[in-house]
C-alpha cells in the first residue's frame, strides 16, 4: 500500500478507528468460522437436586455400558427449566432430548393446541406396551390433557402424617384411635400447650396455614374435592370444597385453632419442628427424605401414620407434587430416548436406589413387593417407610392437568383468606355457619377462572 493511499485512509478514519474496525471484523470472522460443537451425547434436563444426585450415578453406569449411546445429564433450576422448555416448544429454541418435568410446569405446556405441545404423544406407546396397566393409574393425571398422555410418570407421591412420636407417646396418646381430622384434634388436643406462661400456646398440632397452596390442594384432593372436572373445566364451586374450606378456617383461627405456620425448607420452620412447636406435618414420600437429610435431630423421634380422613371410612391419604419424563419432538431418535426413559423409570434396580436416596416410591405396581420397601427405618423409629407409603399408593386421589391450575389455586387460597377474614370479623368459626359465605366466594372465584379459560381460543379449539 502506497503512503498516499495510507494517508487517504487515515483522512477517512483515524488509526484508532481502523484498529477497532479491524478487530471487529477479525473477531466476527473468528466466531463465524468457529465449529459448532458436535453433540456426543443426548441431553437430559432435570431440576430436582435429589433426583439429579440419584440419576447421575445411574447414568454414569448407563454411559459406561452404552458408550455409543451416552446421556448427558444437565441440572437446570426449576424455573429456568420451565422457561427454556416453553421457549423451546413455542419458538423452536434448542431443547434436550429427554426432560424430567414437574407437574405444574408440564401443565403450562398444555396451554396451546395439542399439536403445539413439544413432547411426543406417548398415549399409543403406553397402551401398546401395557404401561397404563403396569403403572399406578392416578400417576398419569398430571401428564394427560385432552385424552392424550405426554410423559412417563416417575412417582406416586402419596401423603402420610409425620408426627413427633416422643411428644405424643409421652402424653399417653394412642394414634391408632385417630381416624378422622376431628379425632385428630380431639385426641391430640392435650398437646396444645402454653409452655412459657405468656397466655399463648407454644405448641400446635399441625403444620398448616391459610395461604399454603400445596397443603390446601392436598386436603381438598383428599376430601374428593377438585379444581377442574374430567374435561379440565373449572369446577371448584362445589359443596365439598365449600365444606372443607369452611372447616379449615377453624383450624387456623378462633378458639379451636390447632395449626401453625411452620413452612418447609425454611430455617424457622425447621426450628419449630425440632423444638416441638409443631407436632405433625403432612408428609409426601419425597418430603420424608428431606426431613431425614435436613433434620437429623428428629431421628428416632418421629413416626408416620395414615392421614386422618375427612369422614369415617374416608380416604386416608392424598397426593402432592410429581415429576415425569418426556421425550421432546426434536429428539432425533425417539426409540433410543424412549429406551433410556424406561430404563430410568421402570427398572427395579433403579427403583431401589431411587427409594434409598429419596424415599420416592416407584409408580410401577410390580415393584411394590420388593424387599427394600419393607425394611425398618431408624429415622422413623423403625417403621417400614416404603411399605407404609405403598399401602396408600393405590388410594391417592386423581388429578386433572390444566394450564390454569396455579391461577385456580391462587383463587382458592384467596377464598380461604377472605373466609377467615369474614370469620374473624363476625366471630364465627363454625363450619356450618361459614358455609354460605364459602359458597358465595367459591362461585365468584370459579366465575373468574372460567372467564379466563373461555378467552383461550387456542386451548378450546382443540378440545
Amino acid at each position, binding site marked *: 500500500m502506497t503512503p498516499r493511499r495510507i494517508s*487517504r485512509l487515515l*483522512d*477517512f478514519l483515524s488509526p484508532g478507528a481502523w484498529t477497532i474496525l479491524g478487530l471487529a471484523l477479525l473477531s466476527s470472522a473468528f466466531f463465524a468460522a468457529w465449529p459448532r460443537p458436535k453433540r456426543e451425547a443426548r441431553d437430559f434436563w432435570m431440576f430436582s437436586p435429589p433426583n439429579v444426585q440419584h440419576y447421575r450415578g445411574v447414568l454414569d453406569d448407563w454411559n459406561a455400558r452404552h458408550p455409543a449411546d451416552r446421556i448427558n445429564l444437565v441440572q437446570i433450576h426449576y424455573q429456568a427449566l420451565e*422457561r427454556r422448555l*416453553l421457549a423451546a*416448544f*413455542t*419458538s*423452536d429454541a434448542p431443547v434436550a432430548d429427554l426432560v424430567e418435568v414437574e407437574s405444574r410446569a408440564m401443565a*403450562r405446556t398444555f*396451554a*396451546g*393446541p395439542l399439536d*403445539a405441545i413439544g413432547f411426543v404423544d406417548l398415549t399409543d406407546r403406553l397402551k401398546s406396551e401395557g404401561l397404563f396397566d403396569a403403572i399406578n393409574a392416578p400417576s398419569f393425571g398430571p401428564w394427560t390433557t385432552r385424552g392424550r398422555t405426554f410423559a412417563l410418570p416417575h412417582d406416586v407421591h402419596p401423603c402420610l402424617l409425620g408426627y413427633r412420636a416422643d411428644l405424643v407417646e409421652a402424653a399417653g396418646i394412642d394414634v391408632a384411635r385417630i381416624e378422622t381430622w376431628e379425632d385428630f384434634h380431639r385426641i391430640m388436643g392435650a398437646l396444645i400447650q402454653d409452655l412459657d406462661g*405468656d397466655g*399463648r400456646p407454644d405448641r400446635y398440632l399441625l403444620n398448616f*396455614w*391459610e*395461604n399454603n*397452596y400445596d397443603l390446601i390442594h392436598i386436603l381438598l384432593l383428599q376430601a374428593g374435592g377438585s379444581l377442574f372436572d374430567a374435561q379440565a373445566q373449572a369446577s371448584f364451586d362445589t359443596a365439598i370444597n365449600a365444606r372443607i374450606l369452611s372447616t379449615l378456617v377453624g383450624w387456623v383461627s378462633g378458639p379451636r385453632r390447632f395449626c*401453625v*405456620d411452620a413452612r418447609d425448607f*425454611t*430455617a*424457622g*420452620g425447621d*426450628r*419449630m419442628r425440632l423444638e416441638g*412447636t409443631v407436632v405433625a406435618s403432612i408428609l409426601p414420600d419425597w418430603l420424608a427424605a428431606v426431613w431425614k437429610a435436613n433434620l437429623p435431630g428428629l431421628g428416632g423421634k418421629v413416626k408416620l401414620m395414615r392421614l386422618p380422613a375427612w369422614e369415617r371410612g374416608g380416604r386416608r391419604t392424598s397426593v402432592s407434587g410429581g415429576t415425569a419424563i418426556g421425550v421432546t419432538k426434536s429428539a432425533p431418535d425417539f426409540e433410543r430416548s424412549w429406551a433410556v426413559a424406561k430404563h430410568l423409570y421402570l427398572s427395579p434396580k433403579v427403583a431401589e436406589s431411587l427409594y434409598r436416596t429419596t424415599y420416592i416410591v416407584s409408580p410401577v405396581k410390580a415393584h411394590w413387593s420388593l424387599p427394600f420397601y419393607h425394611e425398618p427405618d431408624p429415622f422413623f423409629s423403625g417403621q417400614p417407610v416404603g411399605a407404609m407409603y405403598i399401602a396408600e399408593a393405590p388410594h391417592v386421589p386423581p388429578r386433572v392437568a390444566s*394450564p*390454569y391450575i*396455579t*391461577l385456580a389455586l*391462587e383463587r382458592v*387460597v*384467596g377464598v380461604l*383468606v*377472605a373466609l377467615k377474614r369474614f370469620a374473624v370479623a363476625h366471630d364465627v368459626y363454625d363450619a356450618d355457619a361459614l358455609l354460605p359465605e364459602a359458597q358465595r366466594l367459591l362461585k365468584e372465584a370459579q366465575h*373468574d377462572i372460567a*372467564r*379466563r379459560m373461555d*378467552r*383461550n*381460543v*387456542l*386451548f378450546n379449539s382443540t378440545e
Partner: protein
Amino acid sequence: MSATSRHGVSPFPRWAPWVFISPFFVLFLVFTLWPLAQSLLLAFQQTFGPKSSAYIGAKNFTFLLQDPLFWKAVRNTSVYTLGAVLIQVPIALGLALLLNRPGLRGRHVFRLIFFAPSLVGLVFVGVMFAQLFQKRTGLINSALHALFPRWDPEFAWLDTHVMPSLFVASVWLYAGFNMIYFLAALQNVNRDLLEAASLDGAGPWQRFRHVVLPEIRPVATFVVLLSIIGSFQLFELPWVLLDNTAGPDDRGLTIVMYLYQTGFLVGDLGYASAIGWVLGIILAVAAIVQMRLTQKEQIR
C-alpha cells in the same frame, strides 16, 4: 453536515454521517422499535408462542377493563406509589436536612450508612426482609415480643399487612438513595438568602418553607417523578418478599407482577402485552405531568 480535513476539503463522502449514526439506529430498530411494534400487534392476539396465535381484535383490552385482578393490581400499585411519595420522599428529605446541618460531625459516615442499602440488590433486600418478617421466628416479631410481651409473636406481616411491610422494606432501600439528590440540592441553596431571611427574623420553619423549599423544588419534582415511575414498575421486591406469589388474596399484586404472571406463568403473551401498553400509557401521563410541572417552575 460538513467536515473539513487538514487539507481544507471534506474527506468524507455524503453518506459517511449515516454510517456513523447507523449503529445506534440499527440497535434501536432491532431491540426497541421492532419489539415495540411487535408487542402492539401481540396485544391484539391470543398466542401460545409465535407458532400458535389468533387475531382477537380488541378483546384483550376489553377484558382488561373488566378484569378485577388488573384493577386490584392498579389499586395496590397506586397505594404503594402514594406511600412512596408521601412517606419515602419526606423521610429522604428529612435525612438530607439532618445531614446538611452545619457542624455535623461524621457527615460522610452517616451519608454512607444511609446510602449503603441502595448498593445491595432488590432481590437481596426481598430475601432479607422475608426472613425478618417471619411469624414467630422472624427478628422483628421476636424483638417486639421480647420488648412488649403482649405483642403477638405470630403477627402476620406478610399475610395481612403486605403493604406496610413493603413500605418498610422500600424505605430502608430507597430513602438513602433519594437523600443524596436532596443533599446535593440543599448544598446548592443560596447561603445569602438564608442569612437574609435570618436577619429578617425568619425562624427555622419559615426559612425552610420560604427559602429552602422553593430552591430545591426542581430536584424535589424530579425525585417525586422518579419515585412514581419506579413505584409503578414495582415487581421484584414484593415477588421475592412474598415467596414468588402476589401474597394472600393478591394483596401484593402490582401491575408489572400481573404482567409477568399473565405472560410467563399463564403463557398469555397477548394479554400481557395489553397490560404492558396500559402501563406505558400510565407512565407517559406521569411523565407529561412532570414535564408540565417542570416547565411551570422554569417560567417562574
